[in-house]
């Protein structure tokens, strides 16, 4: 690992087939989740982020509630959010522009998290399906995307393979993995 940090992914050790399998699987699952979240929002005429934003707590609450209250801003945010989720989902699943999709996905999740963090003393009216203290599933999915960013798979197990400017970077690490 020391070597890897020094010289970047190009010199990463090759992953074992099991490691490759779980990394690709993780990418598929997160992509699947994003894609469906996006599609579900786009196909539901009643969907709006207003409720989520209006509930916002913590330092950035002012910005989020302002967006919720402004119809133009809200329309833009809803649009960008739904299409963003959809495109990130496609990117992660197909392994197309994987790195960008991963980073933008992390940014979106980060925004979701800071809009409504499960900190001590914050109570939200929207029900959650579990119990969370500081760490919630949004944060875990964010960390999972960070793993995908650290161990990229798109250039071998994805359409990034055919992007002309993609060189040997992560392919180098994955090239011989037995998948």
């Amino acid at each position, binding site marked *: *690992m020391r*070597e890897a940090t020094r010289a970047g992914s190009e*010199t990463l*050790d*090759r*992953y*074992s087939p099991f*490691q490759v399998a779980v990394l*690709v699987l993780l990418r*598929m699952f997160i*992509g*699947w989740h994003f*894609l*469906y979240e996006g*599609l579900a929002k786009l*196909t539901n*005429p*009643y969907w*709006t982020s*207003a*409720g989520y934003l*209006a509930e916002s707590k913590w330092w950035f609450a002012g910005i989020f*509630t*302002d967006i*919720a*209250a*402004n*119809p133009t801003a*809200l*329309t833009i945010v809803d649009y960008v959010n739904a299409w963003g989720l959809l495109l990130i989902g496609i990117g992660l*699943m*197909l*392994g197309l522009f994987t790195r960008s999709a991963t980073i933008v996905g992390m940014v979106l999740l980060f925004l979701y998290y800071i809009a409504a963090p499960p900190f001590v003393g914050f109570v939200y009216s929207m029900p959650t399906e579990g119990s969370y203290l500081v760490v919630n599933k949004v944060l875990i999915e964010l960390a999972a995307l960070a793993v995908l960013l650290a*161990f990229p798979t798109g250039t*071998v*197990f*994805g*359409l*990034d*393979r*055919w992007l002309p400017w993609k060189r*040997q970077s992560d*392919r*180098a*690490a994955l*090239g*011989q993995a037995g*998948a």
Partner: protein
Amino acid sequence: MTDEHTKPKKQAQPEDVPGASGGWETSRRGMLKALVSLPFVGAFAYNYLRKRAADDTKKRAILEELGVTEGPAFIPEAISKPPSERVRLGIIGFGGEGESLIRHAGFAHPDWVEEQRKSAAENPANKALEVYLSQEDLNVAITAVCDVFDVRADRGIAASQVDVRPGGGGANPPAKRYRHYADLLQSGDVDAVIIATPDHWHSLMTTAAVAEGVHVYCEKCLTRTEEEARAVYDAVKPSDIVFQLGHQNRQSEAHNKARDVIDANILGPITLVEGTTNRNTPWGAWVWDIHEQGNPQTIDWDLFQGPAPNKVPFNLERFFRWRCWYDYGTGLSGDLLSHEYDGVNQILQVGIPKSCVASGGLYYFKDGRDVPDVFQAVYEYPDRELTFVYSATLANGNYRGLAFMGHDATMRVSGSLTVTADSDSTRYKKKIEDGVIDTSRAMFTYRPGFKGIDAVTSATEEYFVSRGLLYTYRGGRRVSAYHLLIGEWLDVIRNGGETSCNIDRAFEEAITCHMATRSFKEGRKVTWDPTRRRIV
């Protein structure tokens, strides 16, 4: 990733890179790797389409069963034709409600405009000014103002010449002030009048307007007493004037959609309807501000008292908080039961009930008032085989809403509308067993203006919004229900037709409210005699 889990380090195989020299075998392997996501994409597409199809089938099955459309309620345009000739409008009573009605007719007081502008700058969620400016220009002029309080009369005149107006219309000449309403009605300066005085004046003013051929928009409750209700009805009914009672719910999209639900008989036999009022603020209990300039010099106290049964010496509380006394109104009956009832009458067309039992008491606001602050009324409609219960408190804010309870489903009407199937429904039994209808959630939800949230500035305002009394939506755009109701009245004046809360509906409203008031005051069950048209 730790070292023991990794293979020995090795350089990438050049033949794995497309375009690099290498055999067919390896580049095909690389291609297969690149397309590893295809089975996942396929599985996703398969499951997604299956889910959509299942959802669609379920939704279609429910909607087919219910026989209603998902779209907005069909509401005839409040204004059938662009306003042609200008209507000269008078206002009698420029208090809180009168000022609000005139604003919704397109004339906001300049102070209000300034206030909203500041408020919107601080809080972009406040859209009151935006909504005001986007109102349709009703092509009216405020030509006459009548108020017994000088300050309010002056405010009326200021509003009549405001230059910030919907449709960019410029300033009009100032309205003329009349001290007595009879002078205003006889002046020949008004075609139509808005009456927003305390209830004890409604009947005399409306009757006088009919005599002058002046159209009337009157605030609820129609009158203070049963006798007055008959007198107004007998004057307006045979006349040519256009009459509208101020029940804004008539223009609420959710209320209109609720009628569709009833017409489609989705609820099955409805045996119980519950309308409620819960408020928990002094303002909501009519403890309104006493103006600092109110005194015997600025207020014509004798004229204010007029037909009130008990004449008392000058009293600021009674002038500014008149709803607290039976001398001027009927408390919860005429103010809030009237709205709930009119909503029910609009949706179910129940008319005047057979009987009423009311009870309540003055339990919290012991400030010298003589109307109760907790009040319940139970109405029987044996012909319709249903009971309407009204229940109210002014000292608790637990929202209970308006519910129509049928054997097959329950409908809740507020700013939005939900219909939830009953778990023991006969009609939906099969669909509930098949899992098509879930009784733990609404099977039909209708949310007008579903995008965006509205800032509401006070608990009382929130109460009105939840009842569809303040704003409603047309094509997703927020509009004031008051504006639509005034617009409808003016349209009928110009183009003919029928107002939605005409004198027949107004009479039903007044009698229903007065049955509760009489039952409460006399401590007995009262009934309606339809042939003699008397509460007995």
